[in-house]
């Protein structure tokens, strides 16, 4: 009976090896197969004297071959390992690593998303004679050994929302969170709440969670992994992978495949190599903190030693995080001492660290987490500023911190008090003046030629030219005119078939109409310069962080060339332009994602400046108090550029931004600027749930406390003012400085 089980087990192991290597190492597999068959034959013949000894020999042979093959694993083999149904899954970990657990938030099919598993688990430790149960919240994707309803660990947005909700529960309870990443990527749901959007929400919230988060990566596929992967300690199983995109997805982009086509296996293999997805690669690049060694050819549910080791690693990681912020020196020394030990030989069960934190320790925890991820992003982008410049920027930032403290925190309060006082006094004086002046005015009015307003004066006011400062107005002229407005051609609106729009003449459409179809209101994508020069006050734009350059942290083959091309084409260093600007004198800090730069996709260099914006904004509080009631009032008058009022008038465009910017806190603004190509790209990237082998991680938590080094502002300067409607297709001769624009029309979209 036992023999039967053991042979069955060996058959499973053989099948596993065969699956993992997908046609390679056939001689080894054939050897094992023949040995196993021979054993089975002899068993059925009854010619084995000592079944147990023979089986042990056979098992040793399997162990030997597995160890031998272990040395020859390629990244793609590891991908196949983590996807194999025999791979350990979260349930196995809960059973074997934790001392007790209860699944919460719905079990199996009764869960809102069975691929996301939440459990309250306990780790029982002893301190002397006391037994302490330490609760943790375990969150992770459940692949369920191939159970179909688990979707292979592809979590839908509501599954990630559920995870987020229970993270908040853990935060309320003050217990650590252990997350286990077993996902090939999130389930692509584009409708609300949206896969990417939910992941972003998770990232945002996780960045501020006030409890320790430990993440363990087995299969970390693109955005889905990030939904629960933002952690204080990130461990990785030695046979796992962690990548911005699955090798197949990467191959589809590399091979420029269309819907339904499949990439060649060699290309996938190559991409798996290039994407630097293995545990060693991730450790080297700093994306994970520690590798948990698995048995040869990866952990399977019967590898109990592995679970024991994992338990120790998990406890150690949690302890480290806790002790790192508790700030009590003897413990830190102990942690350091423990670091020398091997995971399997450690016995942390007999040592107790209280897993709760004081309020200040929690602050330190969050601050550390922010710095950790900020550092990750900075390493992935290139900052080519000379050291001296960096230093001076840091000094400059420090000076600004002090200055703004005095100016805004100290002075502003008193300033306001004084202003209110002056206002009060003025109002009093006004009433007094009225009282005093009234009799005098009565007298002068009664006199002929008195100074009170006569009927002639009223008539003059009503019938003669009034003062009207038209200087500050755009009068329907755009400061920047799209180069597409120079072509004599008619453009068809994509809604023409449904809305009956007539073709529009390109100079009208891309010039005066600002890319808006006058029939249906469809917005043709405009160049980012259009927004830059037409939305913000002229000459008010000061760029910073311009030196941050998109890099190729993975060393992906050919990507450097593409980046160089993009940099040359656009004159930008990354796809994110950050600047300070004003709209009707309301100051803003703006980040703008620029489509012509690699489709506007966000990598480390693009995300890096974003947290800095917040810091910058704090440093220069931008008052929203002093706006005029109608900020766009004088921007245009009856000469609205579009008759029948369809489409944007400059005032309306600006108005929107001003309202957004002034009315809401935080007063940060991000302008996504797309052109047809870019839109397409983004949509496609959205489907794959990945951001094309660049930068890592995909998103950065906002509100990072450490300011990003300030570069010297680069003045983008006002463009030479093109009197747009005056300038016909022939006399637009001004070359636009920043980039040539893809001349895509609606037709070829």
């Amino acid at each position, binding site marked *: 009976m036992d023999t039967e089980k053991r042979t069955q087990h060996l058959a499973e192991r053989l099948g596993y090896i065969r699956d993992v290597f997908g046609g390679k190492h056939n001689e080894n597999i054939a050897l094992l197969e023949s040995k196993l068959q021979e054993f089975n034959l002899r068993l059925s013949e009854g010619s084995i004297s000592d079944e147990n000894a023979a089986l042990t020999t056979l098992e040793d042979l399997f162990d030997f071959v597995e160890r031998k093959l272990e040395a020859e694993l390629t990244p793609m083999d590891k991908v196949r390992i983590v996807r194999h149904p025999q791979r350990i899954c979260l349930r196995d970990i809960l059973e074997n690593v934790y001392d007790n657990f209860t699944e919460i938030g719905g079990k199996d099919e009764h869960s809102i998303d069975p691929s996301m598993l939440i459990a309250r688990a306990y780790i029982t430790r002893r301190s002397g004679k006391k037994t302490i149960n330490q609760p943790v919240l375990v969150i992770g994707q459940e692949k369920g050994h191939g159970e179909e309803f688990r979707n292979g660990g592809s979590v839908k947005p509501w599954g990630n929302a559920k995870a987020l909700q229970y993270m908040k529960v853990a935060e309320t309870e003050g217990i650590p969170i252990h997350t286990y990443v077993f996902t090939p990527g999130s389930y692509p749901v584009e409708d609300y709440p949206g896969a990417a959007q939910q992941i972003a929400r998770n990232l945002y919230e996780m960045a501020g969670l006030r409890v320790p988060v430990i993440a363990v990566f087995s299969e970390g596929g693109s955005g889905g992994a990030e939904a629960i992967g933002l952690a204080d300690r990130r461990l990785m199983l030695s046979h796992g992978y962690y990548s911005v995109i699955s090798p197949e997805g990467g191959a589809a982009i590399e091979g420029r495949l269309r819907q339904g086509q499949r990439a060649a296996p060699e290309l996938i293999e190559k991409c798996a190599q290039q994407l630097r997805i293995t545990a060693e690669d991730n450790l080297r690049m700093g994306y994970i903190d520690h590798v948990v060694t698995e048995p040869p050819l990866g952990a399977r549910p019967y590898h109990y030693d592995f679970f024991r080791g994992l338990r120790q690693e998990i406890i150690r990681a949690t302890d480290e995080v806790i002790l790192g912020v508790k700030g009590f020196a003897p413990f830190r020394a102990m942690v350091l001492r423990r670091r020398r030990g091997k995971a399997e030989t450690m016995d942390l069960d007999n040592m107790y660290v209280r897993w709760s934190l004081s309020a200040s320790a929690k602050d330190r925890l969050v601050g550390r987490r922010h710095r950790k991820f900020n550092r990750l992003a900075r390493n992935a982008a290139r900052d080519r500023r000379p050291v001296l410049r960096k230093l001076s920027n840091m000094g400059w930032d420090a000076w600004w911190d002090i200055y703004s403290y005095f100016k805004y925190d100290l002075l502003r309060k008193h300033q306001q008090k004084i202003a209110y006082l002056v206002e009060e006094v003025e109002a009093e004086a006004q009433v007094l003046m009225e009282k005093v002046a009234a009799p005098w005015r009565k007298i002068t009015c009664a006199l002929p030629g008195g100074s009170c307003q006569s*009927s002639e004066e009223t008539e003059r006011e009503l019938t003669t030219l009034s003062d009207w400062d038209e200087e500050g107005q755009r009068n329907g002229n755009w400061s920047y005119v799209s180069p597409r407005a120079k072509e004599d051609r008619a453009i068809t609106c994509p809604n023409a078939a449904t809305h009956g729009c007539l073709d529009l003449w390109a100079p009208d459409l891309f010039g005066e109409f600002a890319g808006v179809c006058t029939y249906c209101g469809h917005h043709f994508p405009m160049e980012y310069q259009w927004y830059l020069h037409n939305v913000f006050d002229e000459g008010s734009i000061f760029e910073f962080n311009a030196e941050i350059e998109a890099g190729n942290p993975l060393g992906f083959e050919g990507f450097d060339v593409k980046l160089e091309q993009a940099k040359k084409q656009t004159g930008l260093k990354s796809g994110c332009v950050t600047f300070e600007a004003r709209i009707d004198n309301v100051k803003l800090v703006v980040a703008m994602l620029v489509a012509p730069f690699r489709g506007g996709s966000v990598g480390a260099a693009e995300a890096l400046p974003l947290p800095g914006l917040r810091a910058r904004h704090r440093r220069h509080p931008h008052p929203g108090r002093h706006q005029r009631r109608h900020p766009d009032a004088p921007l245009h008058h*009856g000469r609205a550029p579009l008759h029948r009022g369809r489409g944007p008038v400059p005032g309306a465009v600006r108005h929107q931004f001003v309202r957004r910017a002034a009315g809401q806190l935080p007063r940060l603004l991000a302008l996504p600027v797309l052109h047809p190509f870019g839109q397409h790209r983004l949509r496609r990237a959205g489907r794959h749930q990945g951001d094309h082998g660049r930068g890592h991680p995909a998103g950065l938590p906002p509100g990072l406390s450490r300011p990003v080094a300030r570069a010297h502002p680069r003045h983008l300067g006002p463009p030479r003012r093109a009197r747009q409607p005056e300038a016909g297709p022939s006399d637009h001769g001004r070359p636009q400085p920043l980039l040539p624009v893809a001349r895509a029309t609606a037709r070829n979209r």
Partner: protein
Amino acid sequence: MQTKDHKVLVANRGEIAIRIVQACRKLGLAFTCVYTAEDAASGHVRIARELGGDKSLCRVSSYHDANELMAVADDAGATAVHPGYGFFAEDYRFARRVSQRDRKLIFIGPSWRVIRELGDKINTKRLARSLGVPTVPGSDRPIYDEMEAEKVAQSLFEFQEQQGIRKPLVLVKASAGGGGMGIEEVYDIDLFRSVYRRIRNYALRQFKDEGVLIEQRIRDFNHLEVQVVSDRSGRNPVHFGTRNCSIQSTGLQKRVEIAPGFDPSSIEYGFDAAQVLRDITNHSLAMARKVGYDNVGTWEWIVTRDGRPFLMEVNTRIQVENGVSATIARVRGQKGVDLIAEQIRIGLGEPLGYGQEDITFEGVGVEYRLIAEDPDNRFTPWVGRVDGFGWPERPWLAMHTHVPSDDPYDIPTEFDPNLALAIIWGKDLAEARERGVEFLDTLVLEGANNAGEPLRSNVRFLRDNTGRILKF
């Protein structure tokens, strides 16, 4: 003459298209006409076929599609476009496109900059005020502030009371609006705020601009026009007299136009009518000179009962009623002035060739617009078939129509049911009136619709109103 080498695309339909074709013919110019499927039986198609053959006709799917018109122009090798009135006549973007595209054409009308400048009512009003030309009392810039708006309205009410107007009215209109959209009257200052807010919100929704204009609402006025003509130099505009277009339908569409604008010789006015006519022509020419007006155009005025003129707007195009001015005008004593031919001639770049002193006026002209409509039922358009249409030829009568008099004609439902323009000349007002009545009495206009009901027209309305022409 160099203008002979030109070919004119007639981008319009009906009566004006016929007159443009005739004018081209007179000037010896080639032309191309467009028509839609519904207009296949229209007179302008017939006359184009007669005078230019089938090659001078091109069917289009819509008169409103500039792309199609440009394609026709290129295909036919046209060098100029005449927009007529309506459709693209006052669309500066069309004019700009025509004159700035790769294969440039001449836009027979003012230059697009002039169209844009005078097409904007605020701009026109401010231009007028800067030259001391009287305009309707009220604001001359969009008002965005509620307090300011109320102040203007308040002083407008006071102003009207001072003038002895018994029921003062104030007009609130969206500054970005037009064509009657977003206009409302206020008769009480207490109601002003609610109206103001309504219009402001409407304007914001509709035109994305909150600005409003606040003006006096003038009632009891006569509608006068000044016909201005200027060559491409834009330096020497002349006028072809005034017209009175006060007889209108309930929808404020003109029905009878008379030239000159007033007749002080036979009618007693409560003011110096001759002086008013002199003033408005001088003001109109002053503005034309200022903007460098370079084609034909009409300055529209309203004259109150006490003889105060106010500039209303400028129409930067040939107008329907151009013929009535032409019929009383004499250039160097010569009859037979054709303003459309003059427009094409100067539009193609010829100098005008005469000055104001060469233009004299003789007699009175009356133009009737014959329309299939029911004046008793709020001028509802009538649709059906015209079976009989005829009139006795007279030396003092000119008929412009696209409706054939020998064939039945189905009135297309896609356009206004205009049938004809009748222009009558008399040596004085009495004779013009008499001849007008005679013409209307002898006119044959019969027809029926699908239900067998007889044709309805405004002939009786025109006859009834002939008695009061030029009387204030």
